[in-house]
């Protein structure tokens, strides 16, 4: 079942009239992990910001629409956004150290979300926060509630970020390069966690990355971006074995030991 659809989205920078996203269209199904692949500046992160209604000042949506459960997100009022952002659609970013508040404990940051969005009282929010921390695989969650972000390791911080993002039981999670700052062993642990959440909770995930190995590992389907345009959409296996667009092919060939080198050299 389709849960989100981006249709002909064009975003322009008001200052220099540069077109940053050009006629971007793709659909996203319930329970799916959709990969967005592209190099830096190709518009992958911009798309996720547009979906959350968080485009930076000076960028305007020139045309197009984003349908979430049949509603056009681009026509929502700020009040209506509150019910979607964080609650229905949540996001985790690349570097948890910059997206977590350094002066609040992990517990306080989860409880804040629970109180603001769901109107929970302190006590039940505390219990729920512990549940969330243990769900994302943080050992001794009751102790960790009182830890500050700098006291956690990189992998634990990213888990804490995921716990905050899951606090309101969202339907969609946007993961913007969530493992790029992590070491390979931790990267795989976080990817496994996301896969598990996808299967157990039925969480639908939009996964943004430029890493081909990660993409192959996690995504069901892939959207390939190039300079603000979507140039290819397809099943993961298909995109990797028979890319249709020449740019996708050049991306795959950039992998140091790409077997495609032999056939296309």
């Amino acid at each position: 079942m389709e849960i989100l659809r981006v249709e002909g989205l064009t975003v322009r920078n008001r200052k220099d009239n540069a077109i940053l996203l050009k006629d971007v269209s793709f659909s996203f199904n319930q329970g799916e992990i959709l990969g967005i692949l592209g190099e830096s500046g190709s518009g992958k992160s911009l798309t996720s910001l547009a979906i959350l209604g968080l485009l930076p000042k000076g960028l305007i949506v020139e045309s197009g629409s984003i349908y979430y459960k049949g509603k056009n997100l681009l026509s929502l009022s700020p009040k209506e956004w509150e019910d979607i952002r964080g609650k229905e659609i949540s996001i985790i970013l690349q570097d948890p150290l910059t997206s977590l508040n350094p002066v609040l404990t992990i517990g306080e940051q989860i409880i804040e979300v629970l109180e603001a969005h769901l109107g929970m009282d302190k006590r039940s929010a505390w219990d729920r926060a512990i549940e969330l921390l243990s769900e994302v695989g943080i050992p001794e969650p009751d102790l960790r509630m009182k830890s500050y972000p700098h006291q956690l390791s990189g992998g634990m911080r990213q888990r804490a970020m995921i716990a905050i993002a899951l606090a309101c039981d969202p339907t969609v999670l946007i993961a913007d390069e969530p493992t790029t700052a992590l070491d390979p062993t931790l990267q795989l642990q976080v990817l496994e966690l996301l896969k598990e959440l996808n299967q157990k909770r039925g969480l639908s995930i939009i996964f943004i990355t430029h890493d081909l190995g990660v993409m192959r590992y996690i995504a069901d389907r892939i959207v390939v971006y190039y300079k603000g345009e979507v140039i290819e959409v397809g099943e993961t296996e298909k995109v990797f074995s028979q890319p249709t667009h020449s740019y996708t092919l050049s991306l795959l060939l950039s992998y140091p030991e790409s077997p495609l080198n032999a056939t296309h050299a």
Partner: protein
Amino acid sequence: MQPMHEDFIDQEVISEVKDVWKRFELRIGIFSKKTFYALRGVSLKVFKGETLAILGESGCGKTTLGRIFLGLEEPSRGEVYWFGKNLKTLSKREFKSLRPKVQAVFQDPTSSLNPKMRIKDILFEPLSINFRITKEEGLSQIGEALKKVGLSEKVLYCYPHELSGGQRQRVALARALILQPKLLVLDEPTSALDMTIQKQILDLLKELRLSFQISYIFITHSINTARYLATRIAVMYLGKIVEIFPAQALGKVPHHPYTELLLSVNLDPFNPVKPNLSALKGEPSLSFEEVEGCPFYPRCQYKKTNCQTLSPELVEVSPGHFISCFERI
């Protein structure tokens, strides 16, 4: 020992570190300090013409080791040799004459190039400092260096911000090459770049090494780039070298349990295998004390009781292949 031969690699040792320790003091609060060991008894030789990859995760000490090879950091204990000469006993003048021979390229060209200098001046500075030559003489050498890294002379009057990430890294490389070094320390030179550009820079590095017979110390966290560029790989864990092997042997011989773990979590887009998740538990902790035993002990799936108390030495298990693990020798 015999490094893997790519015809011109020979036994000549370009640089060497012997039993190098590096201690840092971390301030905890106002009064207390904690001692932290970034390197714990590392010995390593770099042979002429080889690419020695130093592979490890963040915090394992690979960058510190690179800085010690460069002479930018002094070891707390142990010796560093350049071309057979001990850096501790070198006079200032001798050090100055050897300095151009050992150069560096760092991860992020945006921060390693001065934003207020034109490319021409960035490339001229090392020449004027080391060889005191005039601008006119310099210009021809600058042109040559640009040609080596595949840039046109158009960039001479540009500032770093006017260039793309790949072009900037080429400038950083030209700046190192202009002194005709014998040893280049490359600290994650491609991790800040886009993937298509990464490949170009890796290929350029390969080509330069072959045509100018430079030795590389290639510091990286990526098995894939190490496999692509290196002739020999040294794997580090918590300040120690746990394994050294010829790059061709990667994945084909019994490895140290940590190398095995790194291989099992390496996500190859063209050869997707189900990674071994049971071996994945835990994360490295910083080594605050002079711990006894094997540094990998807490995460090792083959550990035995004596691994906790006895520290394994690097032992040559086959020609050019060293492992520090009781299980593997």
